C-alpha cells in the first residue's frame, strides 16, 4: 500500500468514526430536545422529510425538536455508514418506546457533507411506525 493510500484509509476511518459519533448524538439530541446540538451540527441548507410527508427546513425542524414529546429510549438499529463522494450516508433502523410502553420502530437516512473541515448534516429522511 502506498503512503497516499494509507493516508486516505486513515482519513476515511476517521470520517467514519466522526459520522458514527454524530449519528449517536443526533438520536440523543432528538430524544432529549437538545436544540443546541442541532444548532451546531445542522447545515444552513438542511432539510428533513418527516413522517407526515412534509419537508421541513432547518428552522422549522429545530422548532419542532424543541417541543416536548411522549417517546423515549431512542436507539439506532443496524447502522450502515457509507462515504460516497463528498457525502456520508447513514442508513439505520430506529427503535423507541411509545407512551403506552409498546415498542415502536422506524427507519432513517441521514446525509452529512463536509463544510470548512466539519461534517454537517445536510439532509434527513425519517419514517416512524
Amino acid at each position, binding site marked *: 500500500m502506498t503512503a497516499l493510500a494509507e493516508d486516505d484509509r486513515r482519513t476515511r476511518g476517521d470520517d467514519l468514526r466522526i459520522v458514527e459519533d454524530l449519528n449517536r448524538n443526533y438520536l440523543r439530541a432528538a430524544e432529549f430536545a437538545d436544540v443546541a446540538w442541532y444548532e451546531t451540527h445542522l447545515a444552513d441548507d438542511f432539510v428533513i*422529510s418527516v413522517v*407526515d410527508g412534509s419537508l421541513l427546513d432547518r428552522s422549522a425542524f429545530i422548532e419542532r425538536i424543541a417541543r416536548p414529546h411522549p417517546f423515549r429510549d431512542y436507539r439506532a438499529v443496524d447502522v450502515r455508514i457509507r462515504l460516497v463522494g*463528498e457525502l456520508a*450516508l447513514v442508513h439505520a433502523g430506529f427503535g423507541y418506546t411509545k407512551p403506552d410502553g409498546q415498542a415502536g420502530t422506524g*427507519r*432513517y437516512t441521514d446525509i452529512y457533507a463536509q463544510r470548512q473541515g466539519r461534517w454537517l448534516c445536510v439532509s434527513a*429522511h425519517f*419514517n416512524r*411506525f
Partner: protein
Amino acid sequence: MHAQTAAEQSAHETADLGALRQLNDGFIRSVATSDAAWFERHLSDDFLNSNPDGTLSDRAAFLRHVARPSAVSKLAAEDVRIRLFGATAIVHGRTTYIKADGQAGAGRYTDVWARTGVAWLCVAADVTRC
C-alpha cells in the same frame, strides 16, 4: 490540466442538474411502469432503498420488487429539489398517486446520486408513503 473557470463550473452544474432532472423523471416513470431494465442501468451496485414499511432493500431485492406491478397508479413527482455536492447529488421530491382503493395518496422521497465518469448512478433512496 487547467483550473476550472466560474463559467465552466456553472456550465457543468447546469448540465448535471439537467441530467439529474431527467434521471429523476426516469426513476418515477420506471416505478410506475415496473421498468426493471431502467433500474438495471441506473442503480449502483451498492444501491440501498429504505422502503415505506421501514425495511431496507439492496439492489437485487429492489429490482425484484420494482419488477412487480405497482400497487398505485398515476404516480407523479412534484416539488423536486436537486442539490449538487460536487460529484454527488441529493434529490428531494414529493409524490402523488392513486391507491388501489381509488383514494388519493401522497409521499416523499430522498434519492442520492453519484457521478462515476460521465454517468450518474443512484446509490440510495428513502421513500415515505402517507
